[in-house]
């Protein structure tokens, strides 16, 4: 019996966002955009979804005259990501059997 995968993380862009944020303290929106090949609008939309779920925290500020959006993973998000990775590992273990 496979563990159910978190539907919020089981999407390409959201999983990519979480995979990048899990290893860092915080990251700017532009850095995420550089590394995830998607559009600005989609990235913003998916970050919004993760924020709504409490998986990421978003800080909005200014650098000079430009708006600066910084994202970081929350404890809830880190736990959900760990559970997701564990479920994926379990899935592959069972497949191998």
């Amino acid at each position, binding site marked *: 019996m496979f563990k159910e995968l978190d539907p919020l993380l089981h*999407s390409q862009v959201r999983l990519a966002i979480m995979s990048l944020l899990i290893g860092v303290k915080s990251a700017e929106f532009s850095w995420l955009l550089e590394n995830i090949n998607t559009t600005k609008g989609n990235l913003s939309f998916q970050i919004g979804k993760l924020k709504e779920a409490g998986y990421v925290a978003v800080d909005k500020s200014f650098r000079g005259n430009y708006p600066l959006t910084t994202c970081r993973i929350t404890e809830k998000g880190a736990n959900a990501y760990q559970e997701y990775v564990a479920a994926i590992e379990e899935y592959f273990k069972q497949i191998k059997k």
Partner: protein
Amino acid sequence: MDATNKESNIIDENQSLTVIKEMIAVSRIKLRQDGILFIVWGWVLFYVSFSGFITRSIVLTYQMNRIISRLGIILGAAAALFTIYYLIKQRKKVQTYIGVSLRYVWTSLFLSTVLVNLIQMNVLHSINFELQHPLFMVLMAFAVTVTGGILRHRLIIIGGAVFGALALTASYLGLKEQLLLEAVAWVIAFIVPGHILFAKRNK
């Protein structure tokens, strides 16, 4: 990886694994230390120590001594300015725990060296350079070893340990020999690992 769809873009387990692996690889490559500050400070401090050893070993003209010591000051100032420029230029779009930890290690090292001088002044009422050099070397050994541990770079850890051993050895010797040992320590703990990190930066 291309994902331009605003829909949830559901993936299967294999794709999940690919996304996770790809993103971890991206982080590893992009956040790798380039070793430039190790190289810059390694060569400058090597020059300062080695030129100190040379000027104490060979009889040079007053002018020559002055040029060598002034050059050390200029190189130190240039390295400090370069460090500020580099840190501003490199102000990454991402803050890592490694970066934060390294900042604490090297800031506390700088403050510790100031405190060592102040303590020496309070206890000895003067700066005893034969004591100061081994103490600085011990502090440096500590900072280098911790840095190696944070970066998980075995060669830097070994460099830190060698720095510590040379600090102890230096305490048995006079200032001239201490400077030579210090020059060797900069090569082992800074210059060599710095060049290795730099060579590996984009691999």
